[in-house]
């Protein structure tokens, strides 16, 4: 088993909620919880991770820029996954509800010595 990081990008995080009806919100929440629960039950969820605040700072050697960033690149959160290989980790991420809302999951293998 190897470890992978899921980085959740985009998917109309903030403000998106206020445009949804309560039923839609409930649906979206249900999908997320079902998906996470599914990963956990199959032993793929090493760490549920956390959502991230939308603001932040981008620090480079010359400048420090404030968030927020472009909506589609905005990293909304992360989780830690266990899978056989990158292909399986990528396959598992396809069930992520963020994909239905225009977001993406970046799947990165964690380097181990």
């Amino acid at each position, binding site marked *: 088993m190897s470890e992978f990081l899921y980085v959740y990008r985009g998917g109309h*995080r*903030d403000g998106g*909620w*206020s445009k949804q*009806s*309560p039923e839609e*919100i409930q649906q979206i*929440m249900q999908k*997320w*919880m079902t998906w*996470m*629960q599914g990963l956990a039950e199959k032993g793929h969820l090493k760490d*549920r*991770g*956390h*959502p991230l605040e939308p603001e932040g700072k981008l620090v480079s050697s010359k400048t420090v820029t404030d968030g927020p960033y472009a909506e589609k690149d905005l990293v*909304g*959160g992360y*989780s830690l996954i266990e899978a056989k290989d990158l292909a399986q980790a990528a396959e598992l991420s396809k069930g992520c509800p963020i994909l239905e809302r225009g977001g993406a999951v970046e799947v990165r293998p964690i380097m181990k010595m």
Partner: protein
Amino acid sequence: MIAALTRVFGFHNLALAEDVMQDALCRALEVWKHHGMPDNPSAWLMTTAKNCAVDVLRRERTARTFAPEITRLLESEWTFRPTIEAAFGPHAIQDDELRMMFSCVDPRLTEEAQVALILHILCGFSVGEISNAFLCSAAAAEKRITRAKKVLATATQLFELSGTEDFCSRLSAVHRALYLLFNEGYHGANTKTAVRVELCREAMRLATLLRDHPLAATPPTYALLALMCLHAARMPSRVDESGSLSLLPDQDRSQWNAELIREGQRLLEESATGDVVSEYHLEAAIAWCHASAPTAQATNWAQVITLYDTLLRIRPSPVIALNRAIAIAQHAGPEQGLVAIQAIDGCERLQAYPFYPMALGELELQCGRKTRASQHFTAALQLARNPTEQRFMRSRIEACALR
């Protein structure tokens, strides 16, 4: 929750309270996506809202003025936390909800605006849901709410619950608003059953808050809640298995909710104090006549008619007069019912009400005049406001052709 936030922020900061609420909700949802829903989401949300409120109060303490009655308490760190904790305690929140309700029925607002505000602020209905409930465009609902909020924002604090004259007149406005809210859910033209049940449930929740407050628990409050219970008890049988409207005489009475009927009866008994007979007393008593009768035939129609007579004296309305005429038809036969309908004062105001031609059609059919009955049902079909009503009228037109 909005009520509690408004209580600490001051009424003029209603928009801020809504933003904070929205923010708390968004945060909660993001966390729940990862970690699942907690066992008690509403308590969790309340804590989040409280923390967001603390942030806002600290950040903007100098830039904004908050609720005047607690401004001094918020200035000192010694009293800051206890004040916030008190404002978000379960008891305070109930109180705030009541005060918010009384603030929403501002006499400067129309009844529609008052009801829309209560739905929006106290029941958390979106503009879309409100426009659905009242069959108006979302833009119109939005405008109505925005305008009403502007009026409210001129007051800096929530309405004070005390036994003043103002309190009494606002209490009857609250009764009226909750009555309209419930009716909209019960008889409303909305097609979505889910929204309608929700409206009734919210109206009952708010009416229960009134009953639990020593000053607001007046006889009409009990009567109003009794009325709601007795009507709600019949709700499961208003639409039959095929999704068609089912009229009172045809309803399967075994489906009526016995527990709600008992609760309604108990409340009605408790409402029978004091010297004022309100319209809610009378309507609840009529509902009780129906709810307690084992069959439509066994209903005490004579008493129902007497109650309608008194109700008409307190609140003259062609719709009530129509209901009275239907009761007369049950009691004394369809011909008498038709006579009573023709005698209704202001029946021209019923022209757009689908149940007016429907009642005429029903009685003509009972008299055996199928052609006339069919004409009335056809007129009713034109006026029907949703597929359920349309289906019902079509089935009645078919019935005319059959017999």
